[in-house]
């Protein structure tokens, strides 16, 4: 790759790297906090998860557990949407500008 240095100086490339890595690591961190938050609740506060919602038998733990599953999907969706709408555009620009 002879134009390596050229790509690295490209502002589009710098923007891509900055935006992609900050979003990727931030979403990873959010996922970690959500999941280990849930595991810590299970380990240290099982009785909290057993509090009934209203007068029925459904406990607060059911929506919490299901939302971890749904949130995992939503976070993935946020990343993919962001990547499809902006990172791919930047990548196309970088490829165009650095065609040797």
């Amino acid at each position, binding site marked *: *790759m002879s134009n390596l240095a050229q790509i690295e100086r490209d502002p589009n490339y710098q923007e891509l790297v900055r935006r992609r890595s900050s979003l990727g690591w931030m*979403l990873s961190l959010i*996922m970690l906090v959500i999941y*280990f938050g849930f595991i810590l609740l299970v380990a240290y506060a*099982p009785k909290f998860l057993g509090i009934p919602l209203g007068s029925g038998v*459904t406990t607060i733990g059911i929506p919490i557990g299901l939302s971890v599953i749904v949130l995992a999907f939503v976070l*993935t969706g946020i990343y993919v949407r962001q990547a499809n709408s902006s990172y791919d555009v930047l990548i196309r620009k970088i490829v165009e500008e650095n065609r040797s």
Partner: protein
Amino acid sequence: MKKFSWLLVILLATVPTLALAAGAVEGGSKQATNWSAIGMFVGFVALTLVITYWAAKRTASAADFYSAGGGITGFQNGLAIAGDYMSAASFLGISGLVYTSGYDGLIYSVGWLVGWPIVTFLIAEQLRNLGKFTFADVTSFRLGQTEIRILAACGSLVTVAFYLIAQMVGAGKLIQLLFGLDYWIAVVLVGGLMMIYVTFGGMKATTWVQIIKAVLLLSGATFMAGAVLYKFGFSPEALFTKATEVHPKKLAIMEPGSLISNPLSAISLGLALMFGTAGLPHILMRFFTVKDAQAARKSVFYATGFIGYFYILTFIIGFGAITLVSTDAAFLDGAILEKTKSGIAAIKGGSNMAAIHLANAVGGNLFLGFISAVAFATILAVVSGLALAGASSISHDLYGMVIKGGNANEQDEIRVSKIATLVLGVLAIILGIVFENQNVAFMVGLAFAIAASCNFPVLVMSIFWRGLTTRGAVIGGFLGLISAVVGVVLSPAVWEVTLGFAKGSAPIKLDNPALFSMALAFAGIWLFSILDRSKRAAMDRDGFNAQYVRSQTGIGAASATTH
């Protein structure tokens, strides 16, 4: 493709075997001959063999064999990844766990899902941009080929071996129950079909087997969960109320129970599940079957959706089984019921059969047959994916890159992978029979722990950390691999249950070693990389910039369709 006609002979030969074996045990067994299941199973096998035949005619190059020529779309690959991941263990095991313990089943489901976002954010696109056939292509991008390939092959093969044994034993037990076949016949059948799919059809056949299986499993589970909810007027509250009335644990099934007794164990298992997903070789291989990084990223998104949806269904199915199976004498063992007075404990065939009996309860015999056939298809598909990953690691990493130094003739490499598949298949059959009566649940945990402690740290550090050197990766990776294996042997599940030492004597109290083995791997990688002043280390660090640009932009990435 004349060689191929013997496949039909095998297929035809299995039909009477199935029928005879099923008939033979009918008299003494609780399980009656399950004709609709056998019919649907034969139909599935016939369909997949036709696909294998079609794929075999189109598999000429190494790219076809390892990565289906890169011609799989993001959506198809999403289904295939979900197919690889939704094993019979997760379908029958988690619904069985919900059946016996209620809420605890949901904790497992959550754990099996949360690795996927991490794969999307940090691994999928970079992997596709840097690699070609196996994840070792990525880790060895700038590091020393020989050492890194050997490390990756060890990590992959050990992971695949433990996962494969667990699947084979599970398959034998399940088929024994479902079809009334002898254990060894079941294991030979699974191993044999797996060898046919992989040797003849390569990744193309394996992928389509996964896709069909994923669609069947998702539609079957949707029907079951729908039927359960229908009976309760689509009110989960009504379903839960009835379940707490009939379950002997009563309201306790609505909160975490005995599953998590030791918080450190819970965290350690959580780590293994979350990061193990991002290190499973048969899953990572799937990212090379798509055309580019964009398709790789979309495929994980679809896969996460399918898998999450599926786990929510298994939760409903488990509760449905509590209300409809544990209260129906037809599904219960009279003698056990007499003794324990608990419908839950008395279920015929054990708690893993909860979903199967529920199929009968909501959809009659024909649907029971459908779900049994799907459960079998699930095992076949998962073992095929594992075998392909193991064989690729031998042929591409060890033979092609280490022994032949990257100059292997493509046809030779394919031949080696076919031989490796046959050897792996025979080994899987033998080990499946040897381990028949062992508790193998820990093996899946071990496979995840090794993937999380060896494959994942090396992969993620090689993608993101400039300072990584060959020496650091090799020492850290092997530290993770060895400590994971040692940690499992010294854990209560193996030391006390399998090896039979006194209760409480296990040297390590954690059921899963990931907490310390992952930490050891990362610490080893870091320490031995920063201490590394060798010439090789300078080369490793210098190569980072080029690798990083390619991992981010895909410029220079192997185009998937032509090699």
